[in-house]
């Protein structure tokens, strides 16, 4: 760990000298410093700024201060009733101890868990631009199938951000050039040739809050996370969804995927395919396929296509009110129940060759 200076931020317009970074809960940044991956000269502690409130916005919706702890946000009564998907996503992440430290701003800006990124002795275009990406041929079982590039296929690990992407949340930023608002879906960059930059934020830009718009559909929302053990594991695939069904038709829907892309992946194409259409398992599966059509899986991560497709169907079906016809029948029926998801466009191509190898 490189020697660094530490100071407490005193006000929003404090500014950030070159080589300085913000410190919030420190649960990600400090680990990266110990590993020699983050090497700041100065830590500016923002966890004590007056950004720890959850307030109602005048025109409906809520404002979450960037220093609000993940545990407090998950427990907030308004969040649990008006945006249950957010509370569930938070509680599906990390551990109780970590959530007590982690903040809203820090959670959004936590960095990928790609195993090459996390090891300073490895090549990685993210921590050492131009050094190459060993993940494409190496370990990528939990890396991106959407939005990646030759240079980088890292995934964004946050659960919370997937819920925020589904909820049309807007990030409030204060920086050297003034204030601006950025939808969460635009906060993250796709890697392209410059994967070293995760987000569109400029040096010195501080996240002050995250705004949740008033969103009636969100009252009926949920988050489901698949992982390699029952708890304390990053997602291998997750889905955040909100759904409003009337007379068997989808009136409104929000859908986002986690652990499949360098950013929380708002499934706009899938939503489009659903609005005004019958709320059936077949339609849900077709909508997932519409989004996953552009997936470019590698040797060991094609399973994510079947996983996301199945999760989408299961999560949306669970949100259909029981009085609606589509809610009938056991969850395991219909296309989502098929293991390999052999039918449908999403699993064509590389997906199938990988299938054979893994099991025998």
């Amino acid at each position: 760990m490189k020697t660094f200076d530490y100071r407490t931020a005193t006000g929003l317009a404090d500014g950030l000298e070159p080589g300085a970074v913000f410190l919030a809960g420190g649960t990600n940044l400090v680990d990266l410093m110990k590993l020699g991956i983050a090497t700041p000269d100065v830590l500016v502690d923002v966890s004590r700024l007056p950004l720890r409130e959850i307030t109602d916005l005048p025109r409906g919706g809520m404002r979450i201060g960037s220093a609000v702890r993940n545990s407090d946000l998950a427990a907030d009564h308004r969040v649990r009733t008006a945006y249950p998907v957010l509370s569930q996503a938070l509680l599906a992440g990390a551990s109780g101890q970590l959530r007590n430290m982690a903040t809203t701003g820090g959670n959004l800006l936590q960095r990928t868990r790609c195993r090459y990124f996390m090891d300073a002795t490895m090549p990685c275009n993210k921590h050492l631009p131009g050094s190459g990406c060993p993940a494409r041929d190496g370990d990528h079982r939990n890396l991106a199938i959407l939005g990646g590039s030759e240079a980088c296929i890292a995934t964004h690990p946050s659960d919370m951000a997937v819920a925020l992407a589904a909820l049309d949340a807007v990030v409030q930023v204060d920086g050297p050039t003034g204030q601006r608002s950025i939808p969460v879906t635009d906060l993250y960059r796709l890697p392209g040739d410059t994967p070293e930059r995760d987000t569109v934020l400029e040096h010195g830009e501080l996240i002050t809050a995250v705004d949740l718009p008033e969103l009636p559909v969100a009252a009926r929302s949920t988050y489901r996370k698949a992982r390699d053990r029952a708890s304390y594991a990053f997602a291998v695939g997750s889905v955040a969804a909100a759904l409003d069904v009337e007379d068997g038709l989808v009136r409104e829907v929000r859908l986002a995927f986690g652990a499949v892309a360098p950013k929380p992946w708002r499934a706009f194409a899938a939503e489009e395919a659903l609005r005004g259409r019958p709320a059936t398992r077949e339609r849900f599966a077709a909508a997932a396929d519409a989004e996953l059509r552009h997936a470019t899986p590698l040797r060991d991560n094609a399973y994510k296509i079947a996983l996301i497709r199945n999760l989408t169907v299961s999560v949306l079906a669970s949100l259909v009110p029981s009085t609606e016809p589509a809610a009938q029948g056991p969850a395991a029926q219909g296309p989502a129940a098929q293991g390999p998801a052999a039918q449908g466009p999403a699993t064509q191509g590389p997906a199938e060759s990988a299938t054979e190898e893994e099991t025998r």
Partner: protein
Amino acid sequence: MTSMVTRAVGAPVARLEGPAKVSGAARYAAEYPQDHLAYGWIVPSPVARGRLDAVLIDPAEEDVLAVLWYGNAPELAKSDDPELAVLQSDEIRYRGQPLALVIATSLEAARRAAQAVQLEIAEEDHDVELRADHPDRYTPETVVPDVPAESSTGDVEAALTSAPVTIDVTYETPPLHNSPMEPHATIARWDDQDLILYDSNQHPSGIADTVGAIFGLPAGRVHVVTEHVGGGFGSKGTARPNAVLAALGARVTGRPVEVVLPRQAMFSIVGHRAPTLQRIRVGATEDGILTAIDHQTCTQSSRLLEFVESASVVTRDVYPVPNLRTGHSVVRLDVPTPRWMRAPGEAPGMVGLECALDELAVELGLDPVELRIRNSPANPRYVECLRSGAARFGWSERDPRPGQRLEGEWRLGTGMAGATYPASAMPSTARVRALGAGEYEVAIAAADLGTGARTILAQIAADELGVPIDKVHIRIGDSTLPQASVAGGSSGSASWGWAVTGACRELRAADGSSDEATFDTTELVQQQKENRHASGAHFAEVRVSTVTGEIRVSRLFGMYDGGRILNPRTARSQFLGGMIMGMGMALHEESVLDPAQGTWVNHDLAEYHIPTHADVEWIDAAWLDQPEDDLNPMGSKGIGEIGIVGSPAAILNAVWHATGIRIRTLPARLDKILTATP
């Protein structure tokens, strides 16, 4: 003493050091205060093979006392373990090999300087990939612990050809890392010519010998203090490079030096369970009587040392088979040396054997419990574990067909597998002293890894001396005490308990004429019964999501014969711990190799998964509690490892029963379920 009111042995005595541990008073190796303590940080090799030409450090680095590498490190005497010849050669044999030790006045300074060190390395091509058709594969003479690599009775090929029912399957287990909670850690200090090591290990006497020899010291001049150990699982059975590096650093700087491994280094320099590729062929009569087994294991070792995971050996003992062939082949690769990990050999070997038998049972249309009973005519305790375990688990209600139970989105299934582990003891010496006022001190250089060893020795001594347990003061974890065998091979309680029993009996026989007795079991142990085993049966219920492929273990049950159970409380903890580790082996644990980078890439506990509390939904263990009196004076068998033997197979067999999918490459994870066709 003629009438014993209460016996301590067999009582659920809580661990004596429990309060000290939970209050933080118990000291682990790196927690002994030292004046002028300096901190060592290892610079690991970033390549798997090559030559180290130079180590350069910025002279402006502050607080650095020394940077040791082979270019300037003092010469060490040769050791049987070439991985302990640290900083002695420019050859790089595996990624993560210590290339330099930076010693500084603070931990932060040492780590910072180590990260900034410049290494000049001539890199060479490496090969880290185990393949069954590897051209360098050969048959070793012996495998771990020291048994012939091959065995053959009868005519296996002929018996397989003529058997009406046969199975031919390959099971693969991945590399695994022990990663105990307390990492390997040493504080070394030279007091004049004596070397003091506060070291986390499973064998203080052995560490004193090994490290002493490397520094040209008789064991008596090395003092190893190992009061408390936060787990080892085999990885602390012998001295590891941290002990030698700390001693080197202390010698060069003239200060006490601490070397604590960061978690990442726990995935290189302390050993791993080697991956295995096991081909198993089984032949049986239509009644399910085994006529032939061929069990061949292919595994890996390092360039430095041949250590062969003996996965096929267990098959020699579990079921009597007239035509039996077992063998091992090994490939030497540019990897760290594999070493002991809880039930080396048995744990992976019983994945292959007990899963293959499950496949055979299906082929035969025979219940898997019944198949095992039919093939255990001379093993009544095993049969009792199978029968009684099945009854307690509710096995008889099982529909043998796979994929029949669906609850919501979850497919349910049950599976079982047998368990076995050798019962043995190793030479040890104990001393007991009458302190007056009815109090006694019992001393032996044993190590308590958190298992309850200290407590059990106190129970044994209390009964032998005829006093309440609080009159017995146990001293262990110090190499200056009478020498003890390693806390390994599930032999600790038998070995040390035997010595303690002997010493107590001698003291009582002296009838007051002496207030001290010492007892060495070497001769007795040499006459111990060969080929005796603890045995057991594991039963698992799993559910597998049809949506995500996630596998959860709803119930896990173990029924054991461990001879006399000395302390049901600590025994239960050992059984359950082994079973949970078995769950990890079946579902979670895997060190993921990147062949191009020459190393495992998931080298921390966020990425290398072991079960969490939430993964353990319902778990229980029961035991027969029948002493085996001709084994040792306690009638006990070791129980520290048997829980991980067979429990992975029980879970994998349950996954098949739930889904119809056979996962033959461990661990069973959701991606394998999602992409499989039943």
